[in-house]
């Protein structure tokens, strides 16, 4: 995973969609691969209800994360962005637009993302 210095020419942005039935509901995933990072949207209906951004810091073991859109009491987007930033060492934008009722669901959703990261690292 080479670091891309600010200002260098970059690969074209690529888009990747996939979906999976998790706990009786179809969950959709949309990935936009950017230079040095990616945008990931997760949802069951086409709503963008929040957006978190996370990236690693050399001063802290856990990546820094902030919520730029949405309800701060919903910690799902931040924590997912943080964990994905840690795993990929990239700047990660996450919109987690699923109802926050079931914490089991978010765990399964995260596992599904990790599976996709392993199967298709070229999309992230």
């Amino acid at each position, binding site marked *: 995973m080479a670091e891309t210095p600010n200002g260098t020419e*970059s*690969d074209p942005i690529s*888009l990747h*969609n*996939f979906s999976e039935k998790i706990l009786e509901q179809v969950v959709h995933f*949309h990935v936009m691969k950017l*230079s040095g990072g990616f945008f990931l949207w997760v949802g069951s209906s086409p709503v963008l209800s929040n957006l978190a951004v996370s990236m690693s810091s050399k001063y802290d073991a856990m990546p820094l994360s902030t919520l730029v859109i949405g309800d701060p009491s919903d910690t799902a987007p931040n924590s997912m962005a943080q964990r994905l930033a840690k795993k990929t060492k990239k700047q990660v934008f996450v919109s987690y637009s699923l109802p926050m009722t079931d914490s089991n669901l978010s765990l399964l959703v995260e596992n599904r993302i990790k599976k996709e990261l392993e199967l298709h690292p070229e999309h992230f």
Partner: protein
Amino acid sequence: MSSAQPIIRSRQTEKEVNGILTQVVCTEFSNYIFIVLTQYGKIGTLISVTPDSRSNDISTPTFSTRVLLGKDEPLTHVCAKHLATFVSQEATNRPVLLGLALKDSSIDSIKQMKEVIKSCQVW
């Protein structure tokens, strides 16, 4: 066990604007239009362009811009309004989330970029 149809629609294109490769990705959500306009391949500065609800009278509608992430400069607001106002108006007043990473923000380039956004219409 993946189903094929994505539920959000997106279109992308790239074009040279005054000699600089410019990429555009437009994504449609029911409550937002998300546009990435970049000459660095990154999202860069993230700005929301929202129609003001008060402007329901006959006068021209007004829009508010807010920098959600990145350097908050006056020029960023000008560019964002110039680029995204028409999108919001065409998309039944949906707010626009705009990722802007430009090497060249001249008025001539901005005008050309607006056309590139138009060619990626998802709304």
